[in-house]
């Protein structure tokens, strides 16, 4: 159903830049391993030199001691071959050992940084980006980059060096034939360049499609109950099949591209070998070359087959790493929009009186043209509780989210005790504000950890008090008490239990400012009354902003503000507003629905809903 990759507003970062630009920019991560890279390159070259030397020794054996009937020389040279062989293996061992630890270290370091960065990107970023896309970057793409760092890059360098050295040796052995072999680099280069271009596009497409698949899987897991409730398994399976098939098609296309190129690349050394055979034979016949030399020449030349054969694979790997780096960079290059201003201050809890003021605050969601909030002027006095009331979708939750700066005001300012919130350090501000969201957000970890989300240092007593206040003592009755892991999203708890835990979390540690979004909506009347009574005691001394839908909860508030069409149209005591503001009365009143008579939508029965 949804457009593929829609949640992925891929910024056009590579405006004409070199395809390897992003990969190049990851080099700071290589810096700690510079010495290792040097060593492993040396080891690799050494190993290759050893492996090149072996056929040379063999040639010497064949042409020398064996031909000259010299057993001592034979064993000496064979000993040399053995030594070279052992050195080669040892160097390979060193190289791979070093390589694995450095490339894993780099991968882990990038991953940690991307994760840390993602946590700092604002809610508006996460609203738009599918988490499957983020996930595929942090897992699949990074492993592609790691593979390039640990194999592709190394073999690229190694094979180039091998190629050069072998060609030089060939030229030394026989200049004319050697130059012929050297000339075969031209077609190799042309084929590779063409391949790289095509493969780059395919590789990016594939990675994006992998992200789409991950997104759908994640969404399915989250929406599993909805899927089950409607029996929409077949539809989701069909949707998944579509995405998996797209991935399949790209994979097949990539495979075809690689097959074509590999075969072509392979053709080059083979044809060269054929030419060398004919020309070499002629040279031997003409007396310009010994048979031993020709054998050595050919066996050296055979060493070029592997570097060339692997070239296609290395280029593919390199292009994949390049596009993966692009994708990782897209995340890392997104600046966190909400950060500490220069010179931002820390406000100690003890110094906070708690006067919260909205001054001509307006807000519009990024990417949207119409403001959700306009020119909000509102003051909450220290210790006062202000309730926000308004129709569904009028902007109450949005207003609350501005206080802990989950979103940034588009105009005007919010002050706490006269300090613009933007002049406070984020951590300091958020430490002062306790939040309960409309939908309780719980994580699959222990109840304790969920409660002390922002205060890992909270003590036993504080937690107990917060739980008591939220009437959430049931937590102690869970199988392992507070150490019990709550299911993912808290789904192993009932709705009311989740909401009470979220409330307990908000009030834990007595924050200076409480921001509660419809905190009692999932509670039954009786529990609601108990929580209200307890909350009231806390609210007497704490500045609080709460969203309220039910008249019963409004009793918690000292004053009420009515939000209509993004503006505050009335502020005052509940009873005042009730008496003087008809719109206020209407939004709380359980009278007959206005739409039912006033030409609004006519609710219909089965017949109407059917097409």
């Amino acid at each position, binding site marked *: 159903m*949804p457009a593929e990759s829609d949640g992925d507003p891929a910024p056009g970062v590579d405006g004409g830049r070199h395809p390897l630009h992003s990969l190049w920019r990851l080099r700071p991560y290589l810096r700690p391993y510079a010495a290792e890279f040097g060593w492993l390159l040396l080891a690799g070259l050494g190993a290759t030199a050893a492996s090149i030397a072996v056929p040379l020794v063999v040639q010497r054996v064949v042409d020398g001691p064996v031909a000259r009937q010299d*057993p001592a020389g034979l064993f000496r040279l064979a000993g040399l071959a053995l030594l070279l*062989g052992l050195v080669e293996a040892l160097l390979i061992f060193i190289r791979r050992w070093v390589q694995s630890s450095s490339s894993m*270290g780099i991968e882990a370091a990038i991953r940690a940084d991307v994760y840390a960065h993602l946590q700092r990107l604002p809610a508006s970023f996460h609203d738009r980006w599918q988490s499957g896309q983020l996930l595929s970057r942090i897992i699949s793409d990074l492993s592609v980059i790691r593979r390039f760092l640990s194999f592709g890059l190394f073999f690229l360098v190694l094979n180039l060096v091998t190629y050069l050295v072998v060609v030089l040796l060939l030229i030394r052995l026989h200049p004319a034939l050697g130059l012929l072999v050297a000339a075969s680099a031209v077609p190799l280069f042309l084929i590779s360049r063409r391949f790289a271009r095509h493969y780059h596009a395919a590789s990016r497409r594939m990675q994006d499609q992998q992200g789409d698949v991950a997104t759908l899987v994640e969404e*399915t*897991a989250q929406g599993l109950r909805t899927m089950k409730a409607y029996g929409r398994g077949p539809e989701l399976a069909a949707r998944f099949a579509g995405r998996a098939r797209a991935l399949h098609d790209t994979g097949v296309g990539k495979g075809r591209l690689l097959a074509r190129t590999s075969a072509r690349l392979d053709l080059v050394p083979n044809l060269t070998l054929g030419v060398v055979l004919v020309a070499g034979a002629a040279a031997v016949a003409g007396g310009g070359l010994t048979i031993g030399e020709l054998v050595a020449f050919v066996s050296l030349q055979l060493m070029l087959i592997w570097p060339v054969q692997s070239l296609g694979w290395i280029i593919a790997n390199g292009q994949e790493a390049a596009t993966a780096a692009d994708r990782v960079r897209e995340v890392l290059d997104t600046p966190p929009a909400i950060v500490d201003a220069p010179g931002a201050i820390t406000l100690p809890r003890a110094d906070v009186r708690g006067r919260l003021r909205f001054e001509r605050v307006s807000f519009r969601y990024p990417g949207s043209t119409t403001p959700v909030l306009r020119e909000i002027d509102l003051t909450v006095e220290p210790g006062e509780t202000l309730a926000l009331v308004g129709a569904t979708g009028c902007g109450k939750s949005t207003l609350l989210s501005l206080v802990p700066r989950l979103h940034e005001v588009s105009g005007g300012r919010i002050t706490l005790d006269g300090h613009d919130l933007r002049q406070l350090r984020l951590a300091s501000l958020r430490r002062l504000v306790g939040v309960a969201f409309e939908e309780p957000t719980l994580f699959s970890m222990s109840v304790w950890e969920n409660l002390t989300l922002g205060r890992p240092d909270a003590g036993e007593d504080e937690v107990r008090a917060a739980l008591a206040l939220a009437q959430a003592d049931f937590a102690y009755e869970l199988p392992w008490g507070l150490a019990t*892991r709550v299911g993912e999203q808290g789904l192993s708890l009932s709705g009311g239990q989740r909401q009470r835990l979220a409330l307990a979390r908000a009030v834990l540690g007595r924050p200076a400012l409480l921001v509660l979004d419809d905190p009692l909506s999932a509670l039954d*009347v009786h529990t609601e009354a108990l929580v209200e009574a307890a909350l009231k005691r806390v609210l007497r001394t704490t500045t609080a902003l709460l969203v309220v839908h039910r008249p019963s909860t409004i009793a918690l508030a000292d004053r009420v503000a009515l939000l209509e069409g993004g503006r505050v149209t009335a502020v005052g005591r509940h009873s005042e507003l009730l008496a003087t503001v008809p719109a206020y009365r209407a939004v709380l009143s359980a009278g007959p629905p206005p739409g039912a008579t006033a030409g609004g939508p006519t609710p219909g029965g089965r017949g109407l809903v059917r097409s």
Partner: protein
Amino acid sequence: MTAGGPARPGGADVTRWRGIATDPDADRSRAEDTSPEAVARLRARSRVLLRDLLRPHRRRLGLAVALLLGQNAAAMAGPYLVMLGIDAGIAPLRAGDPGPLVAVAAAFAAATVVEYVARRGFLTLSARIGQAVLLDLRQRVYGHFLRLSVAFHERYTSGRMVSRLTSDLDSIAELAGGGIDSLVLAVLSILSVAAILLWLDLPLAAVTLLAFPFLFWLSRWFARASAAAWRRTREAVALVIVHFVESIRGIRAVQAFRRESRNERIFATLNDDYRRASLRAFRLIATYSPGIKVIGNVTVAVVLCYGGWRVLGGATEIGVLAAFLLYLRRFFEPMQELSQFYNSLQSATAALEKLAGVLDERPAVAEPAHPVPLPGGPGRGAVAYRSVTFGYRPDAPILRDLDLAVPAGQTVALIGPTGAGKSTIAKLLARFHDPLAGTVTLDGVDLREVADAELRRAVVLVTQETHLFGGTVAENIRFGRPAADDAAVEAAAQAIGAHDFITALPDGYATEVHRRGGRLSAGQRQLVAFARAFLADPAVLILDEATSSLDVPTERLVQHALGTILRDRTALVIAHRLSTVEIADRVLVLEGGRIVEDGPPARLAAAAGRYAALHRQWRDSLL
């Protein structure tokens, strides 16, 4: 943050923050026990799975192998022809006869062309097969995840599901992407080189064979160690993904509660565990592969000595020794690739084991093998619970011996304190779970015997947690009935009063709702979920606190619509706001999993029970 993360003691901290799961099998599918028998069984299962996946491609695989044989034959012919050219072509050439050399060169050219065609054909074909297998596997696993019960998903977690379908499949794709050809080629070239070696010089070949016991011993050590290491890696990466998915999903809470730094520490531990696990696996191959090299190189030196000595003694010709040594390199070189492939295979097998474990899991709430059709087609909607006992854990029942009969067409309001078991009753009717004892029936048929498609057409549950999928508003409403046209979608929205807010959105019904419907307010999401349920048009509608985030007038509007819509269907309405009760024919008060009051609202209100008290309280709170 760099260079491998801080050195933390790993494990201990991780288990502490995660808390103790109530289910011992929480972190794996049931098949993934850690006992040796279970490991062996799973390995066997994964082999069966692999065979099963490859079966439909038998013929293409045969063709691929044929191409590969062709390629290999051509590639092997190369050096042989070169040597032939040197041995047999040069002497006549010296004598002025280029004929033999030209013939050899022509054969060489032909071999090259064959190699090109066969290689290209093989690589294309194997990519096709590999991708087809992956597609098949992906769809199988996804489909199976859809069939598995809600209870399974609750303990398995979405992150792990994502991990299976992304990272694990990546490991398998890596194998399919480049491994198989190197395997077959390596094996083939080893075999053919072995034949050539035997043919060239038997005693020298016999010396070469001495390497095999060492190779075998080394490989067995590697196989055992790396299987375990890769298994660990799969588990470690799953934990990274689980944590990542969850913390990104709850990013608002993370930020509002300054959870970032602790999350980073936790992530660093998990990330580092993963790094270490993979490092272990890579170090094994970093040891194994040079180990093979040592064996190969020692063998070359030995053959050189022995062969040289034989030439000296006149037992062999110098050309034979030269050729033998040339081929000997070709004999051991593919073993490097083979070891590499073996490593990828181990990694893919570990991933395949995880997938096999999932596929092995039997859906606890299974589709009936022989479904009983509901009488009267789509169902009329008579619901009955017959001595139903249910608990999420068998030792802690939530409902005990519950009996409840709801005649078709009745609207029942279910009220009671949070945690009383209201949602549990609803979930049983939607067959998210099956009762531990007793039955839930629809029109007299046990739900366990109703085909899933039929059940879902008849019964729809709007859960407490509204979930919207990425896509447009219209698409989300249409989720209720995919065949519905735009007019029907709008009519459904209109019926519950969502039309106005939807048309006010920038693109109306075509507005993208973003991830999980984040573009909409919570109340708006509930309205969309409501419209979806109405569009689905079931005989039995279950509403679990479906209006909790709405303002009072909107809720009233929805109630009013409900009054009309529910007139001819069975409905189970769970709500804390007693306004719902006004449209109900019957009220049930639930406490501690038991129905303590049952009757028409008016009668209960007049009595002196709990409902009457609640009702009074509620009336007083109204304006």
